[in-house]
């Protein structure tokens, strides 16, 4: 699936919640509970995303031109939020990730239900994922030279 296909899927899922705040929060946490655990060796200070109020660990690897992220957080809601991003970016190319327009955030009214502080944290996670994409892209280009 393309990045936009996954985003559209997420938008549809959230539409079923009908704007109910409590259901939405529960749903996000449920998504977080399903996120595969991060390896203990990746739970390092270096992998902590800066700019999040909660603690978020994030790391990435590359297989056949596609990126794979893993993440964890000390808060259930943040873990759910990062799981959305992972779902969107899994097995996408660095270029697609770098150019992704994440319109699902507006469509599902993300800022309204997570508040400004968490929105800033969310932006920090996206930035960190794009930085990984850029790093892998640069590495690929050097190898090809």
């Amino acid at each position: 699936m393309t990045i936009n296909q996954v985003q559209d899927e997420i938008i549809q899922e959230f539409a079923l919640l009908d704007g109910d705040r409590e259901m939405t929060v529960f749903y996000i946490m449920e998504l977080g509970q399903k996120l595969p655990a991060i390896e203990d060796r990746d739970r390092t200070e270096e992998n902590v995303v800066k700019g999040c109020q909660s603690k978020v660990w994030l790391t990435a690897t590359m297989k056949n031109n596609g990126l794979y992220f893993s993440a964890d957080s000390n808060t259930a809601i943040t873990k759910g939020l990062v799981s959305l991003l992972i779902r969107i970016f899994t097995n996408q190319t660095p270029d697609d990730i770098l150019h992704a327009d994440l319109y699902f955030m507006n469509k599902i009214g993300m800022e309204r239900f997570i508040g400004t502080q968490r929105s800033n944290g969310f932006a920090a996670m996206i930035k960190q994922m794009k930085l990984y994409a850029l790093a892998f892209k640069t590495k690929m280009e050097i190898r090809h030279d």
Partner: protein
Amino acid sequence: MPNSTSILSPIDVERIRKEFPILHQQVNGRDLVYFDNAATSQKPAYVIQALTDYYQGYNANIHRGIHTLAERATKAYEATRLTAQQFINAASEQEIIFTRGVTESINLVASSYGRAFLREGDEIILSGLEHHSNIVPWQMVAAEKKAILKIIPVTDEGELDLDGYKKLLTSKTKIIAVNHASNSLGTINPVKEIIQLAHQLGAVVLIDGAQAGAHLPIDVQKMDCDFYCLSSHKMYGPTGTGILYGKKELLEKMPPYQGGGEMIKEVTFEKTTYNDLPYKFEAGTPNIADVIAFKFAMDFITELGKENIAAHEHDLLLYATQQILKLPAVKLVGTATQKVSVLSFRVEGIHHFDIGQMLDARGIAVRTGHHCTQPLMDRYGIEGTVRASFSVYNTKAEIDQLIEGLERIINFMK
């Protein structure tokens, strides 16, 4: 007060709630439950009206004007000072200085008194229960003056360890700064005893009354504190104003905090003579509107009666404590025998941010985090708590909603 023997008149919550327009709204599809009163309290309609009346009827700069509006504004502004004097039973109106609130009051004392009278090696005693506002200004002046900070230890229950305090007192002790009640745990501190012990050594004591203003009787003469600080916004009044009380003989020997208009008698380029108390410490055009409305907030408290308010809030605190302890995995943080209506807790295995967010989804406002008391959180080895703090307009039905919300979260996370 819990042990008070005076005859209390029960609080008519339904009538009181009618006076607070903000309470009658839905948040996220449910009736708002406002349990963040330790951060700031809501305002009754007539406090809000006082602001509008001032701006619409008699907005003018105070003290220097001779026209009618200036006269009215000055009278109203000074009426708040008189009310404040009576509210805390200060000996004179000259001992009441308007500030932006507790934070500025503490900064004023640290900066003016601290800079003038601290010497290298002198000691300042704070407590482990303090808000950052009652830590950082002292760190700043201590660094400048090479003075030493010492900290009164906190017990597991969240009370100040008085024996520990006695051990800290020396001939070098110059200032003690502690809160009347803790914003994070609710602990009511034995300020009278702390003050007595300090005075035996000639040290001065500042009491941070942020969490006492709306909840505890305050009599600065009986207490015999040297400085006392209040924030209007935690007492049903507007933001941006508050009080510094200081004993007159101390305020008189302190240098001004800020320079400008209002605080002077005469200015030439060679020399300025300062105005009398309290104006010496009120440089520039003050926050006239909010000071004027603050009077109405204090009147609100006085009319209801502090004892009646305290009794109602104590009732809520007892009920909430009982109910919350029935939930599995809930741990109270702060179990002092004397508490204002603050319930701080943690739920095992669930982060406080998640709890705060989920309660908000049900229209319940609580505070989560370190509550500006990081050293206290370190003392317990935790990052933060969930804090529900109750006010005169809260009800047991609202507490039931909090408990129901928590139950759902705990069940979901299982």
